[in-house]
């Protein structure tokens, strides 16, 4: 159901369009027709312009072949009509030309068929094959016999029976007569027809037809910038060239000949008569772009046999100057332009004087030089940009790195301080110390509770104060470590002794804050806290410019080689020393430790180049 409706709908649409088309064409035609012209079996209805008086109007004899036209232009001797043709099943449109000068010249679309009077009485539209009707197709009525075919621009003649023929001598059966068809290639404007009777074998005379393309057709162009050629002067039949080359001397003008692939110029030298041959390489006419080094060009147009009356007119317009006057070329098939500028566009309009309505239009674009191309510009811009970015990046990186370095060193400095804070504020220690104080309170040992509480607060106060600085004096460091050891003593009973070389000016020498604390803490935690008779010893002495700090206990010791995991204190100390050595170049700290099972552990800091003498 649906499909059926769809089909009907489409049909209806098609029919209505068809009706509208026909009615529209008719209405338009009726409202604008003014004059009726009859010509042979074609009747022409046109308007607006008068018919040229020299012509004899033809008699109407075929209403079916009526050609409707909306528009007629008379340009010079030529009548150009845009026509509707009534053909079977509809109508078709195209341009038809009639030239009064040739009397019986009829153009169909862009094709001109020119005959001598009475050779071809009329040309009619092929009624039998409307389907294949095209702009390139003509039918020829010849001596009351219809010989028809399809002549197209590719020089291929096709007969209705469908035989495909190439140019040259062609034999085709047409009733009892045979048509011989020759396509003269020499100037590409001649068609020769001959009729042969198949029964008798008698051949008729040859009938020559000239056909010219009304549009000037550019065949080739040549680069005149080849060496030696200085100037080209066009004459009617020859081209005169002056050759500016001392090796050759002066040459007589020679004859320009063309073949399928190029132009050859034969010249004679004045002095000794040597022939010099100059070849121009052929280029296809369908060009638009020419190279900047080929900015002097010679244009070669299609050549015709009969050039007596034919003249080539041209307009050569560059972008800036719009010179619209038509110039007459000195030669009907040659044009020459010199000094075309790179990057410019030139438009060339050409026409023949006989068919001025048919204008060929060419646009020449001269390529810009390679250094002017967008790609080159882009590349230069790209490289310049890349260079600038790279340069900028380098500066940025440099600055960034310097900044980073600065930040890094600041950060490391900060870390050094922070680490000292962390080591001092070991929360386990703080809470345990406070728990010890709580125990003293609960035991009612008020005096000692006060002593330890003040010691803890002193330690915490110092911690807060020294956390702001990476280095403190040795004096302060010793005070702090004493304080710390005192607090630890409350929890585990051990004795300690601190020995300092009297030559050392404790207040004058700085050390990293809380350098000793983690190591002392380790001794207390791992050795002294779990033994009855623990002893801790801290010795500070100098050796030349170095200062040694030795921390020793008599605890259970450990196997240095098999230390499975370094504790927090040891890691922290090593990290801090590493950072310190990175930050300061002129002095450094070495840290090492030895331990013996059941005998004790000894750790040594060697502060190199520490003492100023």
């Amino acid at each position: 159901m649906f499909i059926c409706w769809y089909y009907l709908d489409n049909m209806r649409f098609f029919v209505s369009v068809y009706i509208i088309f026909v009615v529209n064409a008719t209405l338009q035609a009726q409202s604008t027709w003014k004059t009726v012209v009859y010509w042979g079996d074609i009747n022409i209805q046109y308007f607006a312009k008068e018919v040229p008086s020299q012509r004899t109007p033809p008699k109407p004899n075929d209403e079916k072949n009526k050609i409707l036209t909306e528009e007629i232009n008379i340009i010079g001797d030529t009548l150009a009509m845009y026509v509707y043709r009534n053909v079977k099943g509809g109508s078709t449109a195209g341009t038809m030309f009639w030239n009064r000068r040739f009397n019986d010249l009829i153009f169909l679309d862009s094709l001109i068929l020119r005959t001598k009077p009475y050779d071809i009485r009329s040309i009619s539209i092929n009624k039998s094959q409307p389907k294949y009707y095209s702009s390139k197709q003509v039918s020829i009525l010849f001596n009351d016999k219809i010989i028809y075919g399809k002549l197209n621009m590719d020089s291929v003649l096709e007969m209705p029976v469908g035989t495909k023929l190439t140019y040259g001598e062609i034999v085709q059966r047409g009733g009892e007569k045979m048509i011989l068809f020759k396509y003269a290639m020499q100037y590409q404007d001649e068609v020769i027809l001959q009729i042969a009777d198949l029964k008798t074998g008698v051949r008729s005379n040859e009938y020559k037809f000239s056909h010219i393309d009304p549009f000037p057709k550019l065949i080739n162009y040549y680069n005149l910038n080849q060496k030696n050629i200085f100037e080209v002067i066009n004459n009617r039949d020859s081209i005169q060239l002056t050759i500016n080359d001392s090796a050759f001397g002066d040459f007589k003008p020679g004859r320009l000949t063309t073949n399928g692939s190029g132009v050859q110029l034969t010249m004679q030298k004045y002095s000794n008569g040597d022939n010099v041959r100059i070849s121009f390489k052929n280029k296809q006419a369908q060009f638009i772009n020419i190279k900047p080094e080929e900015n002097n060009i010679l244009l070669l147009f299609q050549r015709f046999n009969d050039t007596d009356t034919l003249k080539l007119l041209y307009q050569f317009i560059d972008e800036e100057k719009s010179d619209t006057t038509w110039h007459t070329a000195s030669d009907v098939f040659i044009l020459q332009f010199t000094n075309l500028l790179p990057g410019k566009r030139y438009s060339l309009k050409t026409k023949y004087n006989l068919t001025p309505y048919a204008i060929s239009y060419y646009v020449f674009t001269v390529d810009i030089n390679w250094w002017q191309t967008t790609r080159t510009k882009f590349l230069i811009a790209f490289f310049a940009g890349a260079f600038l970015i790279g340069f900028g990046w380098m500066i940025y990186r440099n600055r960034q790195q310097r900044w980073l370095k600065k930040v890094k060193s600041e950060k490391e400095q900060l870390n050094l301080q922070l680490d000292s804070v962390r080591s001092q504020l070991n929360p386990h220690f703080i809470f345990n110390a406070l728990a010890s104080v709580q125990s003293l309170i609960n035991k009612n040992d008020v005096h000692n509770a006060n002593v330890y509480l003040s010691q803890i607060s002193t330690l915490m106060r110092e911690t807060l104060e020294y956390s702001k600085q990476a280095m403190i004096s040795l004096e302060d460091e010793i005070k702090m470590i004493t304080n710390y050891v005192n607090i630890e003593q409350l929890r585990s009973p051990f004795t300690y002794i601190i020995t300092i070389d009297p030559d050392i000016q404790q207040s004058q020498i700085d050390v990293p804050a809380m350098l000793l604390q983690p190591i002392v803490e380790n001794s207390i935690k791992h050795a002294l806290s779990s033994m009855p008779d623990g002893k801790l010893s801290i010795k500070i002495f100098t050796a030349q410019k170095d200062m040694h700090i030795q921390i020793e206990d008599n605890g259970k010791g450990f196997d240095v080689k098999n230390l499975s995991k370094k504790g927090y204190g040891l890691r922290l100390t090593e990290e801090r020393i590493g950072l310190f050595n990175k930050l300061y170049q002129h002095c450094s700290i070495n840290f090492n430790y030895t331990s013996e099972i059941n005998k004790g552990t000894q750790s040594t800091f060697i502060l190199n180049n520490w003492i100023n003498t």
Partner: protein
Amino acid sequence: MINTILIDDEQNNIDNLGILLKKYCNEINIVATALNIHQAKELIYTHSPDLIFLDIQMPNGNGFDLLQSINNITFETIFATAFDQYGLHAIKFSALDYILKPINISDLVTAVKKATKRIEEKKQNSHIQNLLQFVKQPQNLLEHKIALPGTRETKFINVKNIIRCESNNSYTTFFTIDKEKITVSKSIKEYEDLLTPYGFIRTHQSHLINRFHITKFIKEDGGFLIMADLSQIPIARQKKAYVKDALSLS
């Protein structure tokens, strides 16, 4: 009377705890004190105490080592520590009682009361076993079970089976993949601290979710999450960036 052993490596701490217990917890009867775990182990076998106070960090073997060395734990344990983050995490995870040094007296009294109650009811304390399991496999996060003490019983739930927690004032309700709902009278903040290492995210004031049970992230309405139990969990505006950040990590 509750027979009690005090274990701490510092005599001062033992003395202090003893004084406080005598003063504030009359039901406690200190039968022995120990300065290390070897001594403690012997004393436990000799006295079969009802309760021990156990310091975690000690020089020769810590408190967990002691518990692991005892075959049949029939006593309650109250841990005591000055500062031990890992140990506290393990203890809290198994919902065991602990006191911090220096000792807060009211914390001590509460812990002793709870222990006393359990001793009187003669409940087997399964929390210790969970703790020991936890301590045995500290790396295997997905096998850790968290103790959720309810009003009647304590449930031990594998952390990976918890989909989300929802807070209701000071209560927290757990939703598991077995569609169980367990309400615990602890704040969601406490569980946030405990469960963050396990991939839990606090998306909202009253929501703590397990990242591994998120099925969808919906951008509409300011963003919310669809969990494995199809619940819709809102994301607080100020937590949005944090949640996104956390999700992109998984």
